[in-house]
């Protein structure tokens, strides 16, 4: 289905051609690598290999049943019919305005359930502003999106479909219309929810499917279970550092009830501060907040400017949330590069350099971010640990990613600053003593 408005003759012709091809081909069998994603039919074959056959009502292995049940809304209990429906929808590009983008385009089964790009590309090749989080293991996230604006998977699934740069549909009815006439969908919706296709149920079904995307079977898990040589001695040393000197566990909490490595809180670690207008926007937003209709004014301002960098603040309008983004999960982090909310870090070594020097000083920096004084060996150990968080099913990909990142890290470490890391210079000191210097560089996307 094409919803865009062609502006030139050539585009009109191409549009017509594409339309005929799209209509001719059956759903889920589009050829070509649209927006860089693996074709949907191949992804579907892959997912069947990856996911074990089991009753979706049961909690995944190793997950506390009490915790698992807590995240499932009462009106969306897991059933095989709902999971199957959600799976079909997840891989269906018809949900987008021009029929080229499905959830699986940016959350691609072959690319770590993300797209391994700094920011995502949607319809008409438009680029967004944020890195796509992985859809693996989302079943215990307390909020969705990097700024936590969706309280549940059900709500989250519905939003990218309506986002003008992602899937570009004008409203829920248009989405429903795109698939309502398909008899297969009609039957599946009836089986799953006992009603005709509707937008809310689309969100629910996708959420059910996403709850089955559990990838917690990694060497690290076997190490925790008692297999002492499941991870290398270097990675074991990394685990000691993770819990100790490197302080990772303060925010990247790992425990049996919450195995993801995220505390579900929002922290400004200074990545947004690297964008040139971050502080000016923050000051402006705070100024607006003091006024009577400040909340509305901020929303209005957000549409016109790049206030996306203010992160959680745009959701809560709390000063303490400026530039804050949700702590990412660490599971499968080896294969979900690039990193950070804007995808500005290519390798995990870059991530370590960023934390080691105490992030990027800005007035809203989270208090837990401090220079860590980690040595090169210690950094390598923590990185080794992080690569051990990847599920065995992606072992090959993980190794390739490690090799690639390792090679890159040998030659480029753009975020490294030893003086800051070893606490010889202090963050904020430069800002105070050398205010005239341009403080930040725009990171290339």
């Amino acid at each position, binding site marked *: 289905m094409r919803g865009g408005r062609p502006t030139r003759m050539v585009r009109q012709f191409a549009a017509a051609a594409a339309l005929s091809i799209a209509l001719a081909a059956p759903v889920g069998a589009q050829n070509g690598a649209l927006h860089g994603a693996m074709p949907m039919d191949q992804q579907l074959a892959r997912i069947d290999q990856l996911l074990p056959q089991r009753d979706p009502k049961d909690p995944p292995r190793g997950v506390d049943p009490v915790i698992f049940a807590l995240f499932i809304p009462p009106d969306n209990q897991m059933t095989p019919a709902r999971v199957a429906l959600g799976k079909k929808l997840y891989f269906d590009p018809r949900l987008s305005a021009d029929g080229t983008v499905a959830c699986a385009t940016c959350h691609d089964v072959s690319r770590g359930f993300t797209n391994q790009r700094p920011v995502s590309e949607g319809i008409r090749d438009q680029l967004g502003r944020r890195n796509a989080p992985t859809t693996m293991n989302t079943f215990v996230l307390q909020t969705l999106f990097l700024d936590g604006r969706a309280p549940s998977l059900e709500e989250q699934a519905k939003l990218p479909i309506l986002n003008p740069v992602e899937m570009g549909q004008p409203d829920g009815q248009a989405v429903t219309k795109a698939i309502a006439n398909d008899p297969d969908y009609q039957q599946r919706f009836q089986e799953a929810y006992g009603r005709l296709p509707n937008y809310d149920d689309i969100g629910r079904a996708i959420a059910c499917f996403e709850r089955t995307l559990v990838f917690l079977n990694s060497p690290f898990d076997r190490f925790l279970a008692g297999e002492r040589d499941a991870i290398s001695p270097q990675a074991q040393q990394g685990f000691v550092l993770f819990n*100790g*000197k490197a302080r990772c*566990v*303060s925010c990247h*909490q*790992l425990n049996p009830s*919450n195995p993801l490595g995220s*505390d579900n809180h929002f922290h400004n670690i200074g990545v947004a501060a690297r964008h040139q207008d971050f502080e000016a926007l923050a000051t402006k937003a705070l100024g607006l907040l003091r006024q009577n209709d400040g909340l509305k004014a901020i929303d209005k301002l957000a549409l016109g400017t790049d206030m996306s960098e203010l992160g959680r603040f745009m959701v809560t309008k709390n000063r303490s949330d400026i530039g804050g983004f949700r702590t990412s999960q660490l599971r499968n982090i080896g294969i979900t590069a690039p990193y950070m909310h804007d995808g500005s870090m290519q390798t995990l070594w870059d991530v370590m350099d960023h934390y080691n020097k105490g992030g990027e000083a800005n007035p809203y920096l989270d208090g837990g971010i401090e220079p860590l004084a980690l040595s090169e060996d210690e950094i390598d150990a923590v990185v080794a640990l992080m690569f051990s968080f990847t599920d065995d099913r992606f072992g090959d990909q993980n190794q390739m990613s490690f090799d690639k990142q390792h090679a890159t890290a040998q030659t480029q470490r753009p975020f490294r600053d030893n003086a800051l890391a070893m606490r010889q210079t202090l963050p904020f000191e430069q800002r105070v003593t050398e205010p005239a210097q341009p403080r930040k560089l725009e990171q290339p996307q």
Partner: protein
Amino acid sequence: MTRLTACAAITALAVALIVAALAGRHRAAAGENIEVKLCDNQTTTSVPADQPATRENGEKIAKALMDQWKRSNPDSKAWVEEERAKHTIVNPADNSPLIGRGQGAVYGQITTQDVATWREETLKLVVDGSSVFHSADRLGGTIAVSCDMCHPDAANTHPETYPKFQPQLGRVALLRDMINWCIEHPVRGQQLAPDDERMRALEAYITAQRKGTQLNYGKR
């Protein structure tokens, strides 16, 4: 002489001497100082000559002399008193109602000396804990931060709420786990082994300061 006897002797002697000495002199001119010396001929303090020779003043002078003497005699085991002079330490439970109770071979008959021994030994560990708590050096910190800087008199340590799950530690924390975290991060030292004498002393002191608070494990 035991420490207690030494203290008592010196104080009594000093008071007597001072009162005698000052009583026997005619009034000196204002502005003159009298030097009062202990019988070790080393410990001295200076007293204005026109200060009235009351028992109260005599005791103050004796106390000042005692302080000095203790400081220059560190082996004297006066550390307990010194620590208690600096920092409030909650006393352990009073077991004196037990005196005379008990029978047979197991408990025997509980005596005053038993009660005193229990009290003294318990207090010693708690007082040692107080001294570790207040000392960045003994904690092994590298940034000259001691526990009392954030927890004066062990305030806000709430030992009655442990064990509790602490996500930032990745596990259920006991008091010693939290102490170790604090030693590693705010104090920037090395974590202590669980049976390290300092760890035992710290736990003792912190728990002692919350005597009487209801246990409420798991409270956040």
